[in-house]
């Protein structure tokens, strides 16, 4: 059984039982999962984790759903790739790529959905649903197929084809909404009020979001139970950004990091900061939708909604639900907010592909371009251990990079080939 003690409002601290709730009845603040860390600390160890499954469920002691019979298509345990070629280009000698684009449905969303789907089945829901910018729809449909339950996915009607097909193939009921993601989300919250469905990012959100903590755990484990000095993370709602930070701090407080003494979580589990966690959290958003970074640059404590207009559609949330919390994490960690010009997004995709052989979607292009800015400005020093999170696969946003296709057109003869080759002066034998 999971070590969950209940839910607690992040704003007014009112407590609730661990049910399918995500909003405080009193102040409408978000509810967060509370854990029985005393019991967790008695059972958890690096050794126990290392013997677990090669998926997010190796961290089941720190997840809010039971790992005994999870809805698991093997999300997580993705490669942490040393990136010497990209590092050389950027002047960074200690750079890693967390390649989460190779999850079963090709984005990090499999981590959160595996947790949400498991919880939904535990609660007895028969329909898994979501409001999605694309990747989530793919993952919800895939996990529902695995669980043998129905899925209903709501998407903006202008999504990239790769994401639409990547979701439709699993057989969901797909609802294409003539509007932005924020409008889709609003519609879904009203649908959720009227249908008994498990919306992974609405009434399952408290549980769902916890799945992103595994992005923090895995990087720490893959680095030999230590933390990077810098991470660069893409942000849409801001939830993943806050959960990576939470994951780092949980590991530190539980004494799982190399050379770090355990520490009490204290009364406010969700904002605990272990002094040994010195990772600087750098957020990456595209210029066409950067409400959280804009608030950070202006020194605001609240996030003003914007109307998104970005090719990084998976980051195009104008009214980010966890924006203010992500803002606090940037500040607490000594990190930064970075906006990337729309024209640099594709450059970032190409740079990662050409240097490290990793093909990411537009959100990853935003991350690499932000990383480049941070290296150029000196915010990240050459020898500092840095991890860039690549959270989605390039095959889903092929439209953004169609211009790269420029083959030599030849007849099936050697002379035709050699003629064409000689016309491309850049290509040498």
């Amino acid at each position, binding site marked *: 059984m999971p070590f969950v003690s209940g839910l607690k409002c992040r*704003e007014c601290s009112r407590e609730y039982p661990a*049910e*399918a*709730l*995500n*909003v*405080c*009845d*009193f*102040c*409408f*603040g*978000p509810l967060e999962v509370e854990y029985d860390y005393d019991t967790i600390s008695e059972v958890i160890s690096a050794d126990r984790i290392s013997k677990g499954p090669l998926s997010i469920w190796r961290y089941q002691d720190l997840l809010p759903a039971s790992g005994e019979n999870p809805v698991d298509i093997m999300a997580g345990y993705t490669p942490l790739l040393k990136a010497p070629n990209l590092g050389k280009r950027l002047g960074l000698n200690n750079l890693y790529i967390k390649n989460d684009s190779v999850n079963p449905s090709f984005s990090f969303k499999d981590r959160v959905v595996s947790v949400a789907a498991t919880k939904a089945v535990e*609660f*007895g*829901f028969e329909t898994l649903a979501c*409001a999605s910018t694309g990747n989530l729809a793919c993952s919800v449909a895939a996990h529902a197929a695995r669980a043998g339950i129905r899925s209903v996915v709501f998407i903006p009607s202008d999504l990239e084809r790769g994401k639409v097909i990547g979701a439709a193939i699993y057989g969901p009921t797909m609802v294409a909404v003539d*509007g932005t993601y*924020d*409008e889709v*989300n*609003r519609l*879904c*919250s*009203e649908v*959720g*009020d*009227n*249908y*008994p469905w498990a*919306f992974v*990012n*609405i*009434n*399952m*959100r408290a549980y769902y979001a916890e799945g992103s903590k595994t992005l923090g755990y895995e990087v720490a484990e893959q680095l030999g139970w230590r933390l990077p000095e810098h991470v660069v993370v893409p942000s849409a709602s801001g939830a993943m950004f806050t959960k990576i930070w939470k994951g780092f701090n949980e590991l530190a407080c539980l004494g799982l990091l190399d050379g770090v003494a355990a520490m009490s979580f204290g009364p406010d589990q969700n904002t605990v900061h272990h002094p040994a966690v010195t990772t600087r959290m750098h957020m990456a958003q595209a210029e066409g939708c950067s409400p959280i970074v804009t608030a950070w640059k202006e020194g605001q404590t*609240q996030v*003003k*909604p914007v*109307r998104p207009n970005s090719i990084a559609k998976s980051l195009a949330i104008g*009214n980010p*639900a966890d924006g*203010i919390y992500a803002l606090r994490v940037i500040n607490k960690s000594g990190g930064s907010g970075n906006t990337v010009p729309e024209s640099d997004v594709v450059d970032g995709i190409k740079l990662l592909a050409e240097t490290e052989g990793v093909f990411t979607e537009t959100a990853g292009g935003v991350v690499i371009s932000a990383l480049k800015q941070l290296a150029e400005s000196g915010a990240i020093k050459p020898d500092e251990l840095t991890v860039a999170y690549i959270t989605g696969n390039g095959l889903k946003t092929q439209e953004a990079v169609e211009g790269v296709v420029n083959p030599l057109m030849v007849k099936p003869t050697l002379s035709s080939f050699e003629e064409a080759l000689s016309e491309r002066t850049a290509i040498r034998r």
Partner: protein
Amino acid sequence: MGVLVRIPTPLRRMTGGLDKVEMVESNLVDMIDNLESSYPGVKERLIDENGELRYFVNIYVNGEDVRFMDGLSTSTKSGDEISIVPAVAGGLGLY
């Protein structure tokens, strides 16, 4: 015909379970005052101590976020549909 106000789950305890109520057209400040007189307790859930819309509450008039309109001064007319939606969105749980 007045305006139709859709009530989210967290407020339905105060509206006796009603998921929508009819109100006379006005601006949103007056509408919330009217809601409060019919359903005491609603106002403090929506408006903070400075008289502003609470951070985690979104109000939409015909699907448009009032933060992009005139905020709480936004006026409504007969036939409008108003949605009150938690910013992190709601949910029913199981029936």
